[in-house]
Each structure stands twice: as structure tokens, then as C-alpha cells.
């Protein structure tokens, strides 16, 4: 199967895609974009979160073929050139990154939250990120990072 999809603004094509492959496999193994992570591949951990036509999804639960003709944005597509997105910046500065395997998914999920709710309350942050598991941080510094990113964005 041939899959043509727009990833991070660029049209990409992959040939000989097995119909059972996920969007996650397509991105990681065929398009050279391993940023979305393969932690559970059953939609429980959120580490593969990407945008599909602007909606955050678990790329492991989307068949590669479902992305045909649609727009995918991954964590690799959030920074503007060398300049980190404020959410990325805040994750580094707040110490929200340890092993970092959950980070790409959390960055996309937090990016989506702040686009919808520029100044979220703590319960709103917790609810929005409840689908993203982190095993290292106990989430405290992830909350700090989202609060910091919200303040930064509000100040711009």
C-alpha cells in the first residue's frame, strides 16, 4: 500500500506499507520521525501523541492508511527552526524531563491544552494530561512546566 500524507508541512510518501501498520510505525520506521514514542502501543500511555488534522491522537491507535491525504504534526514539527516552542522551553527549564520517553507526548498534549485553554487551572492541567503516563517525575515538575509555558505565552 502507498501512503501519502502531509507531515509537519511536507508531503511524504511511503511505499509497501503493510495495511496493519500504525501511523506510529509509519512515522518512526518509514519516515524517519522517531519523536513520537512506542511505550505501550495500545493507547494507554500517550507517549505517541501527535496531531492528526489538528486533533491530538495516539499514533499507535491510528492505522497508517487512515493518515492518507491528511495532515500530521509531530513533536518534531513544533519548534520554529532552532527556537523551541514555549512549551518545549518550559519542559527543559522546569526540570520536567528526566528519562524523557514520555516527553514528546506530553509536549504535544500540553501544546494542545494551551491552544484551547491559555490559562488553565491545575485541575484542568491534570485532566488534560491524564492520558499521558510518566514514570520518572511524579508529575510535579510537569505541572510546573505547563504553568510556566502558560505564563510565557500570556506574556507574548
Amino acid at each position, binding site marked *: 500500500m502507498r501512503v501519502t500524507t502531509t507531515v509537519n508541512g511536507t508531503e511524504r510518501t511511503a511505499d509497501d506499507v503493510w495495511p496493519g501498520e500504525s501511523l506510529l510505525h509509519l512515522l518512526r*520506521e518509514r519516515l524517519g520521525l522517531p519523536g513520537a514514542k512506542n511505550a505501550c502501543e495500545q493507547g494507554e500511555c500517550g507517549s505517541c501523541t501527535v496531531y492528526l488534522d489538528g486533533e491530538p491522537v495516539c499514533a499507535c491507535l491510528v492505522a497508517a492508511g487512515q493518515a492518507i491525504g491528511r495532515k500530521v504534526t509531530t*513533536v518534531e514539527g*513544533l*519548534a520554529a527552526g532552532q527556537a523551541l516552542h514555549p512549551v518545549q*522551553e518550559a519542559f527543559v527549564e522546569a526540570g520536567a524531563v528526566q528519562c*524523557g520517553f514520555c516527553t514528546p507526548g506530553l509536549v504535544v498534549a500540553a501544546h494542545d491544552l494551551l491552544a484551547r485553554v491559555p490559562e488553565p487551572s491545575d485541575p484542568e492541567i491534570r485532566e488534560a494530561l491524564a492520558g499521558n503516563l510518566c*514514570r520518572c517525575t511524579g508529575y510535579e515538575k510537569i505541572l510546573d512546566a505547563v504553568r510556566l509555558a502558560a505564563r510565557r505565552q500570556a506574556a507574548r
Partner: protein
Amino acid sequence: MTTTQAAARTTGRIGDNAQRPDGTLKVTGEFAYASDLWHDDMVWGVTLRSPHPHARIRRIDVTEALTVPGVSAVLTADDVPGENAFGLEHADQPVLAGEFVRYEGEPVALVAADHPETARRAAGRIRVDYEVLPALTDARRALDDDAPQVHPGGNLVRHLRLRRGDPAPTAPVVVSLDFEVGMQDQAFLGPESGLAVPAEDGGVDLYVATQWLHVDQRQVCLALGMPPEKVRLTLAGVGGAFGGREDLSVHVHACLLALRTGRPVKMSYGREESFYGHVHRHPATMTYEFGAERDGTLVYARAHVLLDGGAYASSTAAVVGNAGLLGLGPYRFPSVAVDAFGVFTHNPPCGAMRGFGCVQAAFAHEALMDELAAAVGVDPVEIRRRNGVQEGDRTITGQVIDSAAPVAELLQRVADLPLPPPLPGHPDLRDLPGAVGNTTHGEGVRRGVGYSVTYKNVGFSEGFDDYSTARVRLQVTGGEAVATVHTAAAEVGQGLVTVQQQIARTELGVERVVVVPADTAVGSAGSTSASRQTYVTGGAVKAACEAVRTAVLQRAAVALGRPVAGLALDGDKVLGAGGEVLAGLADVLGDDAVEETVEWRHRPTHAVDPETGQGDAHVQFAFSAHRAVVDVDVELGLVKVVALDTAQDVGKAINPDAVVGQIHGGSAQGMGLALMEEVVVTDGHVRNPSFTDYLLPTILDVPPMQVQVLEYADPHAPYGVRGVGEPPTISSGPAVAAAVRAACGKPLRRVPIRPEHVTGTQPTAIPPRSDRP
């Protein structure tokens, strides 16, 4: 091929909140974890595993698998060229099962193919003829005469016997309990993965996520029948570890397939396979008895601890050591009798997980301290303060604690932290047990508060030669002094790369420090475990920097015609005694680099007496206390942790933010074991190998955490550091369990605590031992 190196320049010395050098790569998705590796022309390896906990393999037929288009190799035990054995302490585990399989999930065969799905399908066409045998799945039966034998030498892995003081003590107040701890999974998010690349010299280069490259290398060499110079390991990006990467996973398998196919081989487990692919925390069955004076002063302890080691030894012997030697908590006991056992069963192998034997014991000794408090009528903080060890006291092995032991202060600190406000009359659903499940509006919800204080040994104990190696180079590049630090120490997320930079900046006065990838081209750094790397590899980096500094200053002394005493190095300048600049580093070194390699050891530890368990077994102890506040819906058994506050002595915080991050994460893992995390094993079969059924704390489950960091320097350790990573995982769970008991009034002698235990619809008592063989 691997990018785990910094793109961004960072700064910061000892005591600063330096940022991670890999942070930018990790937030942009560019950091190369082991499962991200890719190589031209690579094929995928998969593992066929046993569906039975115990069986004899009569025959394996791979013919059909080999006919699947795209398959390049199918391997079984017969294809292991060296010894078909590996293991951390004892090489008792086959690389691929030979005559027997001894646990569900044991590797039996390997397939390499051009697509992972092709490899999986081919693995499904391997015909294995099993003769299913009776399985020993109840650890309490392991030492019975008629128990099935897991290995020829019997089912005992280790019995640790500890005796001290009066052999027949009595006391006016006696409390006792039985306690059971379930099997916890490390649940690191980055699955076991690696890439093996066959080399022109007939050897292999392995890029893998691990905790200790050199102990892996030793085992891979044994199985491949190759010398170490032909088996080179490089650390790939590690997505968490927590003990679960101490044992081998894909290592030998990927190398075998690479050497057979002549092509690079990538292996990466899915989540279900990961549950079978690494060891877990030992389930424990414990019986404890404390005797005390009427004022609560402890007189004696008796304890019996049984750890289910599963099918292979892994690190069970060392875990038994910890569960016994540290298994009564940080208290003064004049008389002690402890017996700790680790046994073989046909359950999944158990080994290292953060807290390593201390976690299980802590649930029992802390529950019993609360019993004692109630029996003598003092509060839980006071009973612990009264009995807590202090610097200069002896532990139950007779070892003098020769640095800070602030048990009483840690307790006071957490007790003094502000408590969360009580639930309002009409609470937000999200603040209640059950949350937006809308299971309660506050009726039936009771609040409870619990305390715990625990301790942990830092570094490897009982006489182990525990060292690390660091190579540090200093040169002037582009007019700037650059230090390069090379160790084999595994960065697993904890921030050791940052710490190494901070130490080099501090010792050499340079700003630019490059930490090169960890590999086996430099000597062993020891394991990233036992909360030891900042201490031991940090010590090695410090010592190597000092050696470099000495060498540079000696050259400067010659060049300047001045005595070396009084000279100092500050980055790219050589200073005199008054701080005046005498020369530039470039003037002294020119284009030369100064490089020194140092092997650094902490003070030796000693084996304990086999009859009494007495001896100076440990190099350092780390103490922590927790206070948990919970709201429990006593009608439904649902628990909401409201606060989880802690105080910990870290000796010296090299990176205070990273220290707090470790404490947050460790606390959450302990809480997980108290309330939700269990690998459920029945009759030797894992029932919940997925993140759907193995519950991990989410951001909705983990409460705000107040953290008090104490810095009582250990005079024997570099910079005074004390291990940080494990203590919070030990003390948090018992505090949560105590808080739930306080809220619901039930004894709750098992963790994880389930709703049916809280409501009493299922008994909390330990079930009678199974009669199933």
C-alpha cells in the same frame, strides 16, 4: 547513528540547578532512545517465549518458520556458540531454553526478518513440543521436601540469618503481624531495545539501553564465546530503568541474530513482551514481632521474610541481604532475630527494583510501629522519634552509623509541614475518591494521615568491590578550555550527565564540558543502581579532574619556573596564590591535551557473619520520612491521595532541582505499590501484562508533594553526597498505607490495597497457602 549528545550549551557548578545537556533533544524528539535506532539494511529480531511456567521441551521444529518469505534466521538453544547461560550473580539462566522452560515467557527461539510483523508471524510457525510439568508457584511451599525442584541444587537461593543480643528476649508489650507485598513492575516507558551490528573483525557492536554496560558485556561474551575486545557495547538512549534493566534482555539475542545473518539486527519489545522481558520486584510474605517497654522503647524484634525469586537467581541473593540486614527499619533494637529467605519458584524471575528489598520490609516494620504506638498510647511520630537511630548508634548488624542519621528531625520536618485543608461541604468532584466517576459527593469519605521513616544502603554492600572509572581530558579548542568526560556510567534519566558536567566545571573551572557517550571503551563505572552513581562515578570524575589539574599545574610550574604549590587552575587561566593570572592554559598546553583515567572506590564494605549477620556491610545509609494524607470512600473502597509530603537527607545536593525531581518520582512509585501496582500472577501465569490492566499512577492520582531537602554532609563521601534515588520509594508507600488504615480503621496487611480490602468485602488476611503443586 546515535544522538544522545547535547545540542545546547549548559552551565552550572556543584550546587547549581544546572539544566540537563540532553533536555533540548528530549523535548524536540531528536534524542535517540534504543528503540529509535535504525541502520541501513537492518532486519528485525523477535523472541518466541514459553507459554508454560514449567515444561520439558521435547522437540522444536523451525522448518515452517524458515519458509516464510523475508525470514533470514531462526535460532534455538543449539545455535548459542558459547555457554548457553547468563545471570547477574550466577549464570543460571539459558540464553534460549534448552531442555526445560522454568517460567511463562522464557525465551525459546529467535527469528530475524525484514519486517517485525513477518518475524512475529514466522515465530508463530515454530512448532515447540512441550511436556507440561507440575509448577511450583507458591513460594511458601518452595522449601517443602515434596516441592517440585526448579533447579538441581534445590529451591533455596539464600537464607540470611541475623542474630544480635539476648537470644530469648521478653518484653511487657508485644505486637506482631503478617504482611504481604505484591509483585511490582518497574514499568519504565522505553521498552527493552537494542541494535546489534556485525563488525568486520568478526565481533559485534551492540547499542542498547541498560544500567551497567560492563556486566552486560561479560555475560554477552560468555554466551557468544568471544573475548571482550570483540563485543563492544555503547549505551543507547535509556527510557527509564528503576532496576529493570540490570538483567539482560535483547542483548545476546540481537548479537546472535546479527552474527548469524551478517546484518544489523534491531530488537524492540512491545509492552506485553516487556512484562515478560525483565525481572520484577519480589513479592514478599513477612511475619514480624516487636517487643517493647511500656513507654514504647523497643526491646527486641523477630522477623521472617520470604521473597519469591521466581525461576532464576538474578539479584535475589542481594535483595535478601537488604531485606534482612535493613529489614527492621532505622530503629534501635537491643535484641534481634531475623531470617530472610529468597527461593526459586516457577513464577516470573524477580530481581532489582528501586528500593531493593527495603521496600517490602518497610511496609511490615512501619505497620508494626503503628501497632506499637497504638498499644502503648503514643502517636505514630513520637514512637518513631523515640526509637529512631542517631549518628553513632549501631545498626542491627552492629555497624556504627558514622554520619548523619536524622530520623527524629526528618519526622519532625514532615509533621510540621502544613496539612491540606479539609474537604469543603460541597467539594469539587475532581477532589474526591472516584473523581468524575461521580461515585460520591463526600458521604462516606474519611480522611486519614500516616507517617513512615525508612533507610537504605547506598552503593553495593557486603564486600563487593564497588568502583567506577572516569577518563577526563582537558585541552584548548578554538581558544576555549574544553573538558571531556568519558565514563561507562548509564544515564537512565536521573541526570548523571548533568552531574558529571557540574563536577568537571567545579574542579577544573571550565565552562564547556562534553560528556561523551558511555561505552565499554573505558573501564567499568559499575551499575546505575543502589543510588550509587553520583557518589561513585561522581567520585571518579572528581578524582580524574583532580589528576588532570595536578598534571596541568605541574606543566605550568615547569613552564613558569615557579613551585607548583600555590598555583591554581581556573578554566583557561593558571592563577598564582593571590589569584593573579600567571599564564593562559593555551600557553601551558599549546595543542596538547592532558588526559587522566582514574578508577575510584568508596570505602570497603564487608561480608556479614554467616551465623549472626553481624558486620560492617554497608558504606552509607540514606534516610527519608513521609507523611501521607488520604481521603477514603469507606463504602466503595476508593482512595484519593491528597498530599504526600517528605523530608530526606541527601548529604549535599549537587543539583537541587534534580534531587527534588528524584524524590517526586520515587515517592510516586512507592505510592503506586501501596495502592494500585501489581503484576498479578496466578498458577505461574501473568494476568495483566499491559498498561490497561497494570495500573500506574497518572497525573490525576499523584497529589502535590512538599519536599524538604536536608544536607548533612557525609564526611566520607565526595562533596558529602548521600544517595538520593531510592529512599523516597521506600518510605512513601508505608505512609500511604498507614493513612488508608487510619481513614478506614482496617488493618490492611497487604499491598497494593484494593477497594475490596478497604470495604472488607474481601478479607485482608493473607490467604492460606495454595495446595496446588
